[in-house]
């Protein structure tokens, strides 16, 4: 979504959150005050800072990021549905009341956990300054959040009513997740509360693995969460501690665990003195049914025979791909011998260096010599020469796609680059990438070699100049220079580039340089 809003055209092609039939139009979070239409102000300037602002402006994404399943290769719009949105399938329908030009209104906005520092990944809510039902004006401090550095007051950016508190004081939430719902008017408060109910059902369980399960949930609105499945002993005789079901005697830690793990204390048999429920009873109860759920499902089953609307992220991908059709792209392929690179990799693998980092570094070094391949055409009329070489690498995670960016890849040594890459991947898996960690790429790498793919064409992400598709390295029978037959490991790379700024010869020269670097990689490890 987003990308190139056409300024001045009301209605039709204004960026809308992906319209999906039964899932709600995700509420749009606006972290900073918006202009009239999302991004139209920003595009005209074209500066990177404004792209960040645009992304913050446009979409539902939590400004600092996290559940950032980035609009993929769509680098300048952060189409990042928050974790809560992913869970919120079938929540409230957003009915635009008054149609203001160019915007789809959502009545319920989310207040999300902000990143108060660049190192913050989650925050603890110290206290809520307002209670549910209170009216808030823009700029009112709503909640006090503790970060890794200090306690800060967080203000609301919109007028409205604090409809529902999703994360109570004393608990933590990852940066970017929703912590409260803000209704525009009092009538919407009950609506928000019903949305809140669907949040809390998912909120109780640990976020990451549950996300994938929730993501593929049926489109129907989730029924009110049943008391978490427990019943360790099926015909549970009322444990002596419950005195016939009137109350349950549980130790303090057992109670805490039960709350965290969503275990119903009444259904747990206590093993403590007098039939008291103790912590390990609760843990046992929680473990049993949970193990049934396939936690490691990276690719959840596809519901055959049904029509599943796009999630916000998938919608974003689709939108970006469609937009790329407007760019005149061409492709140039090259076969590169990787024996030397493979040998180098074997040597330094123990130091934590990955193939991705090696390829990124080689690409960056080649780009140093061919800056035009690192440029892009933002407005159709000029070259935007990027001052840094930021290699975005497409990574498939959790059924989605994300492009963490290795910034200034030419300037970092291979070991730092590898470390950084590992950090980025971990963050991406935990959905905690910040905007500049996924939308600041100037050149993209996409590698399907791990599947055995030998050659493919990648689609150019709007806003960049080129993307390189890397295939797998295969032992190939070749004719050598001295007329013999030999075997070399070769991989095919295929670059898609925007012909408005990158011409055939530019691309070919770049690939020639790249292949020289890869075939003689001693400079990669300085």
């Amino acid at each position: 979504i987003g990308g190139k809003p056409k300024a001045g055209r009301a209605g039709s092609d204004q960026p809308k959150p992906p319209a999906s039939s039964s899932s709600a139009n995700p509420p749009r979070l606006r972290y900073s005050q918006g202009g009239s239409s999302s991004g139209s102000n920003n595009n005209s300037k074209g500066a990177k800072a404004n792209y960040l602002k645009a992304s913050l402006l446009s979409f539902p994404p939590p400004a600092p990021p996290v559940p950032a399943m980035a609009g993929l290769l769509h680098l300048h719009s952060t189409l990042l549905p928050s974790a809560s949105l992913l869970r919120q399938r079938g929540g409230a329908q957003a009915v635009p009341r008054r149609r203001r030009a160019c915007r789809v209104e959502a009545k319920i906005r989310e207040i999300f956990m902000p990143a108060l520092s660049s190192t913050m990944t989650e925050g603890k809510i110290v206290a809520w300054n307002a209670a549910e039902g209170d009216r808030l004006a823009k700029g009112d401090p709503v909640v006090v959040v503790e970060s890794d550095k200090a306690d800060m007051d967080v203000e609301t950016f919109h007028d409205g009513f604090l409809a529902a508190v999703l994360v109570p004081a004393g608990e933590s939430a990852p940066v970017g997740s929703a912590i409260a719902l803000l209704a525009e008017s009092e009538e919407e408060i009950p609506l928000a509360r019903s949305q809140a109910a669907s949040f809390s059902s998912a909120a109780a369980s640990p976020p990451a693995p549950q996300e994938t399960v929730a993501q593929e949930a049926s489109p129907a609105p989730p029924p009110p969460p049943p008391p978490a499945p427990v019943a360790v002993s099926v015909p549970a005789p009322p444990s002596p501690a419950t005195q016939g079901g009137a109350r349950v005697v549980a130790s303090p830690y057992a109670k805490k665990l039960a709350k965290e793990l969503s275990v119903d204390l009444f259904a747990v048999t206590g093993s403590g003195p007098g039939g008291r429920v103790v912590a390990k009873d609760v843990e046992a109860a929680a473990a049993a049914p949970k193990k049934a759920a396939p936690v490691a499902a990276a690719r959840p089953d596809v519901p055959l025979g049904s029509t599943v609307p796009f999630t916000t992220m998938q919608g974003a991908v689709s939108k970006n791909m469609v937009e790329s059709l407007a760019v005149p792209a061409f492709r140039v392929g090259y076969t590169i011998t990787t024996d030397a690179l493979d040998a180098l990799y074997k040597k330094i693998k123990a130091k934590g260096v990955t193939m991705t980092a090696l390829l990124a570094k080689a690409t960056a070094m080649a780009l140093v010599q061919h800056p035009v391949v690192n440029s892009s055409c933002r407005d159709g009329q000029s070259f935007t020469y990027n001052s840094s070489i930021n290699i975005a690498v497409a990574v498939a995670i959790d059924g989605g796609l994300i492009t963490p960016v290795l910034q200034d890849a030419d300037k970092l040594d291979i070991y730092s680059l590898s470390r950084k890459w590992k950090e980025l991947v971990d963050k991406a898996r935990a959905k905690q990438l910040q905007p500049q960690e996924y939308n600041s790429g100037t050149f993209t790498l996409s590698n399907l070699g791990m599947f055995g793919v030998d050659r493919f064409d990648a689609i150019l992400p709007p806003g960049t100049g080129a993307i390189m598709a890397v295939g797998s390295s295969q032992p190939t029978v070749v004719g050598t220079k001295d007329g013999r037959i030999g075997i070399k490991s070769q991989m095919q790379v295929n670059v898609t580039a925007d012909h408005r700024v990158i011409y055939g010869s530019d691309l070919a020269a770049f690939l020639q340089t790249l292949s020289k670097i890869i075939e003689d990689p001693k400079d990669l490890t300085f």
Partner: protein
Amino acid sequence: FDYDLVIIGAGVGGHGAALHAVEEGLKTAIIEGDVVGGTCVNRGCVPSKALLAVSGRMRELHDEHHMKSLGLQVSSTGYDRQAVADHANNLASKIRSNLTNSMKAMGVDILTGFGKIVGKQKVRYGKVGFPEKEITAKNIIIATGSVPFVPKGIEIDGKTVFTSDHALKLESVPDWIAIVGSGYIGLEFSDVYTALGSEVTFVEALDQLMPGFDPEIAKLAQRVLINTRKIDYHTGVFASKKITPAKDGKPVLIELIDAKTKEHKETLEVDAALIATGRAPFTSGLGLENINVVTQRGFIPVDERMQVTDADGNVVPNLFCIGDANGKLMLAHAASAQGISVVEQISGRDHILNHLSIPAACFTHPEISMVGLTEPQAREKADNEGFEVSVVKTSFKANTKALAENEGDGIAKMIYRPDTGEILGVHILGLHAADLIHEASNAIALGTRLQELKLAVHAHPTLSEVLDELFKAAKVNSGVSHSVNEPVAA
């Protein structure tokens, strides 16, 4: 007169007074009916700090996350309950004999028996069952201290339902203990018990846990000391309707009633209950009626010079009362400070102790300390007297030493007058808070103003820089330079 000064009670208050009196050349006797050292040494500060030292270390060693973040591996930790109890007991014995010896060495007569005032400047004492002796004294100080207060309806059996006196012997470590009362005593015990593996439930009559603390500190203390531990709580309830000790395999039963409506709320079934609902003055049997002194809820009424006042409000000459018995500030060091103040007066130099400069500390992990007024108290005073109040805060997360120790959880807060630079109160929650507070308490005692403190140098990197941050962040209108540092590092 047989003596210039007779002190009834050889606890910390009496001991402090006795030593100072001897320095001033007064012929001094001290009467003790139980053990020298009183509560503090035998049933209070000393053994509890020994137990807290153990619990602090246990907690650290058990905290795998904390250890890992420092790069340490700890394979297995455990404790021997008897050895821990012995450490506390041995320490108490040692301090007790130190106290006794110091008084003997200074030439204080230690008289054994329960003291009683029989008339103006006349004291009788004797052990139960033995004949009493009578002595005359120019001045008398009552320093009989306090005992744990047990509300009616609670049956103490010393094993499953007990007070701090018993708890400090650490005869057992229950799986689940209910602590009735969430003041500093209850809080310290929760620290000890949870570190040794118990789970704790607080029962608090007021609506807030830790009611005596500054509310902001109490909030953070709750997050750090309670929420992260195996502790839950019930507030706004009384447990005093009935607590039945464990019998025949049944657990301790505690009936909770709503503090306001007195309706039954819940019955707790726990392994043990610690009654920490405060301390009651130990003043019966002192013969106060002989001199027309009437106690108020057991406390002996005194004026600001610790002189006892009688039922008609008149000062009783040559009779003083210090420490827990007068209820002004029930802390060991307050008792001895009051004792010293009295001896100053007896020696001819008028002295009025400024109680607002006496610090207090709670030795949980992390520690809490305070001196002066809480924020609400300060604001109330400001409203009444018509001056402005400002508050500055800083986080331990901004302190290098705290971060090096990976103990960034903490906050320090100072309430002051921006017009004069006077410090009204300082509250600290964090590593070594109990030691750090003294800079502030000294400043208050000596009347040092913030304008001067701003220029004081603190060694780097130390935790004291937390206070330095507060001083430097304070904005004082009168005088010298303003430092506009933000107290919380971004």
